[in-house]
């Protein structure tokens, strides 16, 4: 039975990779999360994990992010805001094109958003900066509360309709603090938004951001896997290989010595 089960798993993994080969195995998680159907339509295109971000040329709306947490107004703010925090430039995609809104949406809708690893018992009182976060809001509650206040504040002129300069000025006002967003100090919201944007831009694509590993190619980070034993003393060597995502090595272990024991003690 075990053998049968393993064989089935292998077959289905191959089928999955084949099905998503169009946009590269690197795109597997986001492709599945976003639009598995369209991935299959391009089954005969050549895999291109190392190409410049073809995806960046596609308008973000066309990427078909399915929001599970954000409502439309919230999503509109988040999309416009992350595009200012990490903008697109002539060479590299920005946070919006990299799927950061999708990343934040999935984080807030999941365990982290619900307060995983956040001690949540009272009594509650404001602390010194050295004592860290002391609000009763979970991350999901914090974003929901603050975004509602922002969208109410900007009801006449939604953030997404502002010019880039106006958007930057509004974000700077949030960052500076002093603005109350339904009980969330605006600098606290901003710090969460910026941290999540950086996470979504730099984390492994399995989490739904960093599409095509764009940030890793931008800075030259080779990704989740590596065996640098032979390279570490080749000082100053330029690494040109495309980065690798966790999703690419679902079946692989990197070992110096194939005889490494692979048993539980």
């Amino acid at each position: 039975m075990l053998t049968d089960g393993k064989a089935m798993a292998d077959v289905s993994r191959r089928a999955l990779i084949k099905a998503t080969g169009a946009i590269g195995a690197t795109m597997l998680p986001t492709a599945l999360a976003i639009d598995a159907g369209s991935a299959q339509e391009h089954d005969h295109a050549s895999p291109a994990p190392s190409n410049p971000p073809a995806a960046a040329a596609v308008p973000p709306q066309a990427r078909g992010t399915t929001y599970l947490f954000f409502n439309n107004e919230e999503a509109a703010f988040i999309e416009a805001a992350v595009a200012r925090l990490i903008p697109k430039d002539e060479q590299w995609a920005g946070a919006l094109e990299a799927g950061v809104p999708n990343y934040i949406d999935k984080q807030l809708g999941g365990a982290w958003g619900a307060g995983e690893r956040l001690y949540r018992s009272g009594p509650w009182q404001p602390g010194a900066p050295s004592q860290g976060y002391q609000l009763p809001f979970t991350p999901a509650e914090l974003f929901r509360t603050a975004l509602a206040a922002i969208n109410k504040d900007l009801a006449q002129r939604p953030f997404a309709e502002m010019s880039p300069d106006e958007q930057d000025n509004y974000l700077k006002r949030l960052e500076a603090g002093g603005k109350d967003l339904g009980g969330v100090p605006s600098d606290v919201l901003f710090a969460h938004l910026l941290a999540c944007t950086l996470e979504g831009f730099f984390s492994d694509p399995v989490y739904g951001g960093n599409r095509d590993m764009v940030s890793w190619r931008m800075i030259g980070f080779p990704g989740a896997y590596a065996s640098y034993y032979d390279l570490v003393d080749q000082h100053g060597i330029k690494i040109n290989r495309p980065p690798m995502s966790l999703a690419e090595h679902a079946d692989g272990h990197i070992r110096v010595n194939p005889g490494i024991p692979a048993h539980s003690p």
Partner: protein
Amino acid sequence: MAQRLKPVDVVTIGVGLTGSLAALELAKTGLKVVGLERGAPRFTVPDFQSPAIHDELRFSIRKAMMQDNVKVPVTFRNNSDETALPIRRWESFLPGQGLGGSFVHWNGQSFRFQVADFNYKTHIEQRYGKTFLNACGPELTVQDWDVTYDELEPHFDRFEYLCGVSGKAGNIKGQIQPGGNPFEAPRAREYPNPPMKETYFGALFRKGVEQLGYHPYPQPSANMSRPYRNPEGLDLQQCVFCGFCERYACEHFAKASPQTVILPALLKRPNYELRTNCEVLRINLDSTRKKATGVTYVDGSGAEYEQPAELVLITAFPLNNVRTLLLSGIGEPYDPKTGTGVVGRNYTYQTTGGATVFMDESINVNPFMSSGAPGTMIDDFGGDNFDHSQLGFIGGQYIGSIMTNGRPIEFHPTPPGTPKWGLEWKRAVTRHYNHTIAVQQHGTSTASRLNYLDLDPTYKDAWGQPVLRMTFDFPENDIRMSQYIADKVVEIGRAMGGKIVARGGTKRPYTTTQYQSTHNAGGAVMGSDPKTSVVNRYQQCWDVPNVFSLGASAFPQNGAYNYSVTIGALTYWALDAIKNKYLKAPGPLVQA
């Protein structure tokens, strides 16, 4: 109602570094030993394997391997005039959870404390005079360990060979060795393995410090420079420099941890029993309160048990050792107002910081090609390796280029003055990511009567027991020390060829919102006087002689180095006394 279990000889509270090491030593004598671990069981295979183990978001950012702070947090304040509040997310320090404890997610930075660390007060008074300490800070409560380096040397040696430490000796029996650390305490023989390959950032650091006349050496590492079989017959493999070491478990069998160097030998012994997902609530005392009868714990399903034992070893993370003593009523809690009491006294930490050195774009640093202990470093400003007589502070820091990774959520340096976001930030990250070197400062933490641990009056854990309260700020002495060395680091950064050097160094107030170190120490310190120590020189509780509190909670103050190897040596030292003295005649090993 707790179910009473069959009595055993020994119970360990926690199965990490000290718990697994002590259990193996005692199981070898034939005693029935039970290990109670609050976390889950986990092993290199299948739990630490790819792809899951190389996940920066899960392990580095979300702290998947750390103590479940939703169940058991720590509260914190900078001084006793403030109200302590829960550290609601771990950041400054990261106590591990799960079988193997913090010794799974450590980096493998493997130093011995120095000779003067162990008789620190005596040493300072002899070198600088009796009034010097008080001039550095009247609040400082520095004291001797009541164990000497020479007594510990065989145990250091044994622990290094257990772990397969890779390094280059600097001092063998008093003879200075070329290529090693000339400030190293004398060792009986070479390290078990040669040093790790030198990284590019290490080589650039070496070149810079040599120009300045300092003494570079390769950082001793419990990540292997070559395959190694340890004295327990367990095999370690060569480190591949994957860049996922601290905050992670090693998938390659290349880092010393309980899972690689201790547990396989321990778990095959029929007289050892491991119980995971078991939270110890307290040590039980008899009516005299001078003898422990065992422990009470709760298993994963919530069922409560009483485990009688002849000998109880507290082998948790240092902060949890102190809390266990307080919850059990062992030893008098420290009172900072009167300076009396001992449990919680002399809590210390680590002074860290360092410079960020921005290099020319032609220098590909490749920080992701790294291990947990890849540094090239100097000890010219470590401990008391330099003359403090005109400086107005005690203590010191090692300086090293120790970049353990290039994981981009954590590491995307930009020069001072760069905006925190926007196009300019993005361009700066792109420009500097692979052309920046971190140079670390890492040093002593001086004990002060103002810094201590006790039970929080308000906040409770998941079982309704008070959580630990930490009252801590860096003494001014330690700030002066760290800032003095920060200047030296800037000079080094320039000598390395840095175009821009961002100065570091420790500042007040201590904050829990930024990672600094997981070397929490003290609170149940060792010494010769029960008025200023919780345990004697063998880490045996003065008040309850069949309880030993093992690990860094016994450090009277913290030395400059990363402390795991010194914990290992101290544990072997205590176990030697338990096996050869205590078991033959149970009772106090030192008369108060």
